[in-house]
């Protein structure tokens, strides 16, 4: 397929790997964070990490929207799902995220009407088809997904659908990055910037990383050659003593982002004063809620939710994985107590989660061509 096949070419991959090898200084250890869970997934899926020299380390960032949802938030979702007459809708991976007393999937098995959807539009369709029921959409995701929820809410209002509401758990990417950069236990040399978040927000919001923290950024696409090329760009910046935001993913990411998406988000959402992130704690202005103008569609105002903070299970080290302090396989319960079939932590749930990605693609021998 156009735009896909040419970015999976193994010959070009080999050439880029050679370029990376020629750019690294022997004796220096490079630590780059790929911010987005989609990158983590691609890195393991295509074995990109196997093409890198031993002194180039990729650290997996907090950019998996499922992995950052804390247990208390799952409990809130389950509480809403148990209200009489409610059809609770969410994305597939969210169904298996453990709350303090089970997951949404388990709540479904116990009788709650919980349905998996592929988009907020699907949830709206369910609301249209079930006018006698209350349909709630559990909205998760970064700026990539938030416009989709916002457009659906505008559509719901336009159609006068009163039985549709949203439990908004959308988050924004810049505050957790700043929190990570302030973290004393993490030393990073550069960032592979999130491709699809940047499609919406553009490159500008990441300029604080070189400006305030002196680290290079290369915004990258999700194919293996995109990621390798971004690593080349970061290494070239380090070699030249430059420090800026570069855009490897120009075929999709405009510098100024998608202005229509930013407009609709500004209309429908407002920043929460603070939002809890799994493993990172409360981060100021990092989450979105519905604006007062859309308060009628806010499930948290329509239904009572416990809103109780629940500590992560003691054995779970998702927080350290999300911050890139440890690798997935260094977690005490990785692959033993915590597996994709029976996850303890969220990083093992989503296919974008660092633990699940490594478990699925790294733990077992990969049957792929030697590159």
């Amino acid at each position, binding site marked *: *397929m*156009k*735009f*896909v*096949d*040419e970015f*999976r*070419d*193994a010959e070009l*991959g080999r050439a880029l790997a050679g370029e990376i090898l020629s750019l690294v200084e022997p004796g220096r250890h490079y630590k780059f964070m790929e911010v*987005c*869970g*989609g990158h983590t*997934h691609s890195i393991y*899926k*295509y*074995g990109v990490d196997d093409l890198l020299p031993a002194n180039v380390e990729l650290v997996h960032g907090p*950019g*998996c*929207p499922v992995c950052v949802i804390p247990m208390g938030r799952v409990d809130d979702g389950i509480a809403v799902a148990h209200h009489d007459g409610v059809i609770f809708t969410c*994305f*597939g*991976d*969210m169904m*298996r995220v453990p709350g303090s007393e089970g997951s949404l999937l388990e709540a479904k098995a116990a009788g709650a009407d919980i349905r998996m959807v*592929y*988009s*907020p*539009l*699907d949830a709206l369709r369910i609301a249209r088809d079930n006018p006698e029921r209350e349909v709630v959409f559990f909205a998760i*995701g*970064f700026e*990539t*997904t938030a*416009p*989709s929820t916002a*457009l659906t809410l505008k559509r719901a209002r336009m159609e006068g659908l009163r039985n549709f509401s949203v439990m908004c758990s959308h988050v924004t990417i810049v505050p957790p990055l700043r929190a990570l950069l302030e973290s004393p236990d993490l030393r990073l040399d550069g960032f592979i910037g999130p*491709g*699809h*978040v940047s*499609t*919406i927000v553009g490159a500008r919001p990441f300029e604080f990383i070189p400006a305030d923290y002196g680290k290079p950024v290369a915004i990258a696409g*999700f194919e*293996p050659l995109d990621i390798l090329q971004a690593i080349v760009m970061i290494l070239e910046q380090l070699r030249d003593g430059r420090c800026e935001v570069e855009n490897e993913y120009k*075929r*999709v*990411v405009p510098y100024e982002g*998608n202005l*229509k*998406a930013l407009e*609709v988000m500004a209309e429908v959402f407002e920043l929460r004063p603070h939002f809890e992130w799994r493993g990172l704690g409360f981060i100021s202005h990092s989450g979105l809620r519905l604006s007062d103008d859309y308060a009628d569609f806010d499930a948290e105002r329509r239904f009572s939710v416990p809103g109780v903070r629940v500590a992560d299970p003691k054995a779970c080290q998702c927080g350290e994985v999300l911050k890139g302090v440890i690798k997935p396989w260094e977690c005490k319960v990785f692959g033993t107590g915590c597996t*994709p*079939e029976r996850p303890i932590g969220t990083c093992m749930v*989503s*296919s*974008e989660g660092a633990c699940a990605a490594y478990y*699925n693609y790294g733990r077992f021998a*990969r049957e*792929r*061509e030697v590159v």
Partner: protein
Amino acid sequence: MTAFSAPAPDTVCGSTHCITCGDDGAPMIVVSLDWAIGLAVCRGEDGDESSVEIALVESVAVGDELLVHAGTAIARLTR
């Protein structure tokens, strides 16, 4: 063209990837348009067709390739 080979599907959900939960986008081709309701029918890599919100992309035409995330086209694919 020699390509990186794709892995086996996930043992749990049968998919190799969750494009809605991840901040991922899928390239899709516009098959038909309904401007009255602001939706397009698009076909993905796997041949499946679905309704896509097109409000965020300028002047969409049949045959265009769009980057779709969670049922919304977030960008047009250009070289």
